[in-house]
Every structure is written in C-alpha cells, then in structure tokens.
C-alpha cells in the first residue's frame, strides 16, 4: 500500500510536467497580451506597452519562456504577477487559497452528509412518494445554474429577510468572530454544494438499488437480519464504493463551480483570481493556478483510489 502511494506520487511528476507544457502552450496561443487592457487608455502609449513586454521577457520565443518558467518553478519561484506588478504570484494565491479550500471542503462535506442519507432513503423505497420527491429535488438541483441560485438566495434571504450577509467572508469593520465567519459561509457553501448534492444523491440511489438486489442481500434477509442491518451493514458498504469514485472526481467540479460562486458571493478565492488572470493574460498567475488545480485534482484521485482499497477488500495494490 505504502509502496503504491509512493509510486503514484512519483508518477505525478511527469503528469504535472505534461499539464504544464500543454497549458503553457495553450495560454500562449491565446491572442492578445497583458497590455491589451492598457490599450484604450490614452495615458499609456504604444512605446510604453512595448517597453513593458520587453521588460517582462514576453517578446522571447515561447520555448525560451517555458524553460525560464520551468527553471524558476523548480526553485519554487512562481514569478510575479503581470497585473499586480511586482507582487509575487504565490503571495496573491496564498492570500486566497485558504478561502477556496474552506469553501470546497465545507461544500463537499455538506454534499456528502445530505446526499448519502437521501440516496439511501430513496433506494429503500423505490418509486414511493419519498423517492419521487427526492428524485425531483435532485433533478432541480442539477438543473439550477448556480449563479442564478446564488442571486435568488441573496435577494430572498439577505435583501428581503436579512437573515444572512449578502457576501464576503466577514463583516466589515468588525473584529474577527467565528460565528460571523460561519454565518458568511452558509449561503455560498449551499450554492456550491447544490449541484454535487443532487448528482451524488442520484448515484447513491442507483448504486444502493443495485446492491440491494444482489444475492448476498437476499441471503442476509433470509437469515433473518433486521432490515436496518441489511441495508446499512451489508448494503451500504458495498453500495458506497462507486460513490467514492464520484467524490474523488468532485474536486475538479468544485474548482470550476467555485469560480462562479466566489464571484456571486464576493468570496475572495482563487477562482476569481483565475478568471481575472485569464482575461488579463496574466501568464504567471494562470500557470500557477493551473498547476495548483492540477495538483489538487491528482490528490483527489489518489485519495479516491486509497479509499477504494479501504472500503473494498477485494482491491489490493
């Protein structure tokens, strides 16, 4: 097991290298450059823009830029932002990454805690009223765009009822308070979790239905075990195995979803930073966030694989 994990970690190196080559190439292929946004500013001349590009080494051939970038990365230097001139990319990212991770982890937990029980309830009494209600809610959840859902929640719960803050991570001009933080976290976490909760519920339901149909469940029932024990001890453990894969794969979805949620709720995470960096062609920033996301996704998959082994004794590494 340990050997397997080490092997997997070593394998991530060529993987990340591949990701970096691809994304560096794609980013450079995009037309325009970081000075495009200075362009219709009458205070900045074309010569000034050229000087900026030269100074930043952006006029060099792509492979030269890549090798230089890679060299810096190896020494842990992700470079300086082209938009926040002179500020190291890592400093900007580290100021926001905790916010994104917090939001992602809380949403993931929320999704798991809500989805699995509902999925099981649905599966225990398929085609009942409960099942239909849960199913309908799931489809609604999947179909609701989260920017719309977020705005509706803000209008309803913040503007009209005043129960929740309308955005941000904490109340302005007030000292730190854990309760205040949690209060701010609730709405964005709900919004980010909605779609994942919905699909996770569906997966749990179908996976459980599958399992509850198996011979060994019938055997367990025939032995006279209580229904609870059959479902939760024999069924759940087997039924959750495919669900685990999904949880591992939730991570990339969360990274994507967090961009929108962060924007609506004014949540200062890396999703927003990434969008801005992309539109402004802030190359070092785009690359740094891409690499971090790639790493997170690889870690997510690794965790899913390890959990597999824990939950399914048939799997050995």
């Amino acid at each position, binding site marked *: 097991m340990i050997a397997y994990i080490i092997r997997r970690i070593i394998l991530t190196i060529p993987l990340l290298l591949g990701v970096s080559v691809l994304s560096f190439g794609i980013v450079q292929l995009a037309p325009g450059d970081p000075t495009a946004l200075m362009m219709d500013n009458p205070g900045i001349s074309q010569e000034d823009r050229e000087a900026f590009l030269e100074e930043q080494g952006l006029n060099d051939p792509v492979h030269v830029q890549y090798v230089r970038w890679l060299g810096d990365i190896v020494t842990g230097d992700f470079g300086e932002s082209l938009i926040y001139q*002179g500020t190291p990319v890592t400093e900007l990212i580290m100021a926001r990454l905790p916010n994104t991770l917090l939001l992602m982890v809380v949403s993931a937990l929320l999704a798991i805690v809500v989805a699995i029980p509902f999925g099981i309830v649905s599966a225990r009494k398929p085609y009942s009223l409960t099942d239909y209600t849960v199913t309908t809610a799931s489809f609604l959840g999947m179909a609701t765009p989260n920017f719309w859902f977020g705005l509706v929640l803000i209008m309803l719960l913040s503007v009209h009822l005043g129960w929740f803050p309308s955005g*941000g991570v904490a109340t302005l001009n007030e000292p730190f308070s854990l309760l205040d933080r949690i209060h701010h976290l609730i709405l964005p976490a709900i919004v980010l979790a909605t779609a994942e909760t919905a699909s996770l519920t569906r997966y749990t339901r179908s996976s459980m239905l599958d399992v509850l149909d198996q011979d060994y469940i019938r055997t367990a029932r025939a032995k006279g075990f209580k229904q609870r024990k059959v479902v939760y001890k024999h069924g759940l453990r087997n039924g959750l195995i495919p669900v685990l894969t999904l949880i591992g794969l939730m991570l990339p979805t969360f990274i994507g979803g967090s961009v929108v949620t962060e924007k609506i709720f004014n949540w200062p995470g890396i999703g927003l930073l990434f969008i801005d960096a992309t539109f402004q062609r802030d190359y070092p920033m785009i690359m740094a966030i891409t690499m971090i996301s790639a790493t997170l996704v690889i870690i997510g998959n690794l965790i899913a694989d390890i959990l597999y082994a824990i939950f399914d004794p048939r799997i050995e590494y």
Partner: protein
Amino acid sequence: MKKISKLICTLAFIFAFSLILTACSSDSGTTEDNESENTQEEKSEVSNEDSGEAQQGGDLIVGNVSAPTLFNDMFSSDVPSDTIEGFMFDPLTTIDENLEPAPGLAEDWEYSEEELKWTFHLREGVNWHDGEPFTAEDVAFSYNIPLNEEYTGPRGSHFASIESIEATDDYTVEITLKRPDAKFLFQTTVYDILPKHILGDIPVSDLDEADFNTKNPVGTGPFKFDEWVQGQYVKVVANDDYFQGRPYLDSITYKIVPDKNALLAQYQAGDIDYMRVSQSDMPTVESLIDQGQAQLEKVPDLQYNYIGYNLRNPIFEDKKVRQALTHALDREEILETIVYGDGELSNSPGLPFSWAYNEDVPVFEYDPEKAKELLSEAGWEDTDGDGIREKDGTKLSFSIKSGQGREVREQITQVAQQQWAEVGVEVTPEIIEWSAFIDQIHQFDYDAYVLGWSLTADPSITSYFHSDEVENGLNYGAYSNPELDKLMEESDMAMDQEKRAELIEEAQAIVAEEQPYTFLYSQNGNHLFVPQLHPNMHSGNSYYKIHEWWMEQ
C-alpha cells in the same frame, strides 16, 4: 400580500436578467470607457440639496466590481487603483468643475514663454502621513521617476516633453520643457507626488516592486492607508493633519464585489453606501429611489463611443461612404433604446462641457435616402439585384467587431447590421473576447469596430487622429490628413487657452466632416448612494473634494 407580489416581481426580474447575463462576463479590471480613469463631469458640481451642517464621522463603504493592483501612480494603470490613490495622495494641481487646473499641492504657478519654463510655488506646512514635511524635493523626485532610463512603468511618454526638473528652494519647483507643450499643465493634475524620504533610496528599476506600493503607501492626501485584504477590500482612515482640514468621514472602505448583480444586491442589503450603476440596472435603481433607500446622481462621463473604420480598407477610402454610413444609422434610436436615453449624441470628438467644444460641426442625421444617394455618388450600386451594392466587382460587405462583455456595444453592432442592410450594405457583427479584440484592432485585422474612448480633462485630440499615431498610437483607423495634423500640432503648442480652444474646435469640425468614425454618444455616469451621504462629484472626478464628503449620523 403586496410585499409578496413585489418579491415575486423581483425574483422574476432577476431570473430574466440572469439568463441574459452570464455569470462570467468579463467586465472587470479594465481601463475602459464606462469607468473612465478620469471620469469627468459637467460644469455644475453635484452636491446634495443642503440639509444642514456637515457632520463629523461615518464610515463610507464604496463598492466596485474590479480590484486595485497597486498604489503608486507611476506604475498603476487601472481605475480602482487610481481612485484609491486619490484618497491617499495629492497631485501638484487638481481638476476643478470647469475641467481646468486648480491649486493642489501647488498654490500657484507661472509659465515663461522664452525659457519654456514652468515655476510651481508649493503650499507650505504640508506633511506626509508619517509626519515628515513635504517639500519641492518630493516633486522633483516624483517627476524624475518616469524620466529615468531604468523606469519600468507605463507612463514614460507623458513626461517626454520635460527637459529638466529642479527644486530651487524648499517650496519652488522649476520645470523646463523641451518644446512648448500645452498639455503639460494637465499632466500635473494627473500624477500624484510620492515621498522622496521613503522611496528615494530605492533604485528606479526596483520601484515597481517596492513594499510601499502594496503594504504601506504614504501620501499627503486626506486619508491614510489602513489595510488591504486581497480580493476583499482596501480601507483608508482619516488623516487628522490634512492640509485642507480633517475629512468629515472617519474612514473609507473600498469593497470589491466582482459580480455586478451581486454588487447591487449588496447595496440593497445595506452593505454598500456608494457605487456606480449601469443603465440596465435602472429599473431596480428607480424602485430603490422611490422607497427612499437611495439617491442617484447623473454626471456625464468624460468619454464617447464610436464606430471606427479601417481606412486601409478601400471600401472606406471615400469619405462619402463614411458619411453615408452615419446617415444610415439612427443614432437617436440607439441612444434611446440601448442606452435608455442616458447620455448625449456625439458628432465630433469634443465633449459639450469642455472649454474646447465646437457646437457648430457638420451633423449627419438619420436619413437613409441621403445615405443611398451618397453611396450611389461614390459609385456603389446594386447591379445584380441581391440587395447589396457593388463597385468594380467588390461587394459593399464588411464585418463589425466588438469586445465581449460590453452588452451595449454588442447591441450596437446588431442595430448597425439591420439599418445598414436597408441601404444595401451587408454587415456581419463579430463579438470577440476582449484581449483578442484589442489585439486584432491593433493589427488592422478588422473592417469596422465599436469602441469608446475615456478621455482626460485635456481636450487635445492629437493622440487619436494624428498620422504619427497610426503605427504606435491610438489612431487605430489609420486616418491621415496633413491639414489636420498641422492644426493639432499647433493646438498642442498654443499656451494661450483661448487660442488653443479655437484651434481644437477647428480640428473637431474637420474630424466631424471627415467621419473617420461614426460618432455615437457620450454616456452619463450613474452614481448611486445612500440618502445620508453628501458627496461632491463632477465629470473630471467622481470623488471630488473627498475630504468634504459627509454622512448624516
């Protein structure tokens, strides 16, 4: 019951709008017209109906969709940074309600024609936020930064006309120019003075990375830097020592809310006191005003929007074609329906509230018949009956480009497509991601495009229409006219303002006649704020005399 139906209305409204707006539209962080760097306004200074004496105290929360980048005027180029710099720093002179230079750190100034020399007399007794006295050395230091060969920021060309800067005593600065430059005095309204005692020892090549820019800026302005929390807010607090008196407000928090719908929702929830709203938000804004939750101030922006033509494309060579295109476009309707009437038609590159504005320029009003005539005169006829005019086997057919995320301009391309089709011109709108769009314009890879210019208080039009500005400047359409070139050069050297206004107005008339652009309209800036706030603003500055802003307690 009433409340519920209102709620439903609101929800329906959000739903409808959110379907149209994608959550990721990219209107962030650009120095683009609708948030112009020097948002200028008309003569009348806006201030609230006086409701009594100004009161001390209050924390103002300003909301904006884009974030600042750094607080050093010689290196920043975005609107939010510039705004916050305005709270903490002072320039040598300021722009007043008439868009003319007024005393700032300099009390008065004179110009010597023979010596090409400006002399600025500085205010005495001004202190930096750290208590050090402000002197002429600081001015000389600041203006020398962009002149240094090691300078890496984007403002070099603005200081190119300076020969030398000298602090002759503690409170006198002499600036000698290489050539007469009428625009120079306006540059002194733009650039903040930086503290030499803090930045003086840092090599100019490293100034862009100085901690000063992001961690502890020190200025002479009405507010002192307090805190910048990345992606959330920047907070400044009152400077008790401000040379024009302590501000009434205790602090200003500049809050960043990247989504514009969420920004308005935050205003409604009472989390923001002051923000700019766009025309499409007017229905919500009006209901807020009706409920007594808001006041709105409309101030004309220092900007105009236009359709530009690539004059390297033979189709547009003949000015009759350009005039015909303007005749064929119902600009009134565009202003009424797309911009909700919130602006004024433009017919030239001048702004009505500027001291240099020619009211009497040729106007090409909406007249499709006239447009058809002009096109026929220019030799474009529909000979094969397909509804599109041809000349020498070329169809009168072209594309019109616009940058993504600017909904108003996207709609303008569609109106142009329809209306121009009626006079036999085939047009294809192309909406392109912003950076790529700018790149294509710059490479002359376009036929026509919709864009806007945000202007400075100085009315010179040289940067946009001079033939020297084609390759490396803002003359994107490659318009070239020796007569106009000469006129604009003269206007840039005319040190007498009346004489200069005359020359600029003459140039405006030529541009209006030639129509290198179809001039569309200049828009209003809509400033929304809580009823307790008493702000000042004009076209040149939406945070005018910020130290005099106050809030009812």
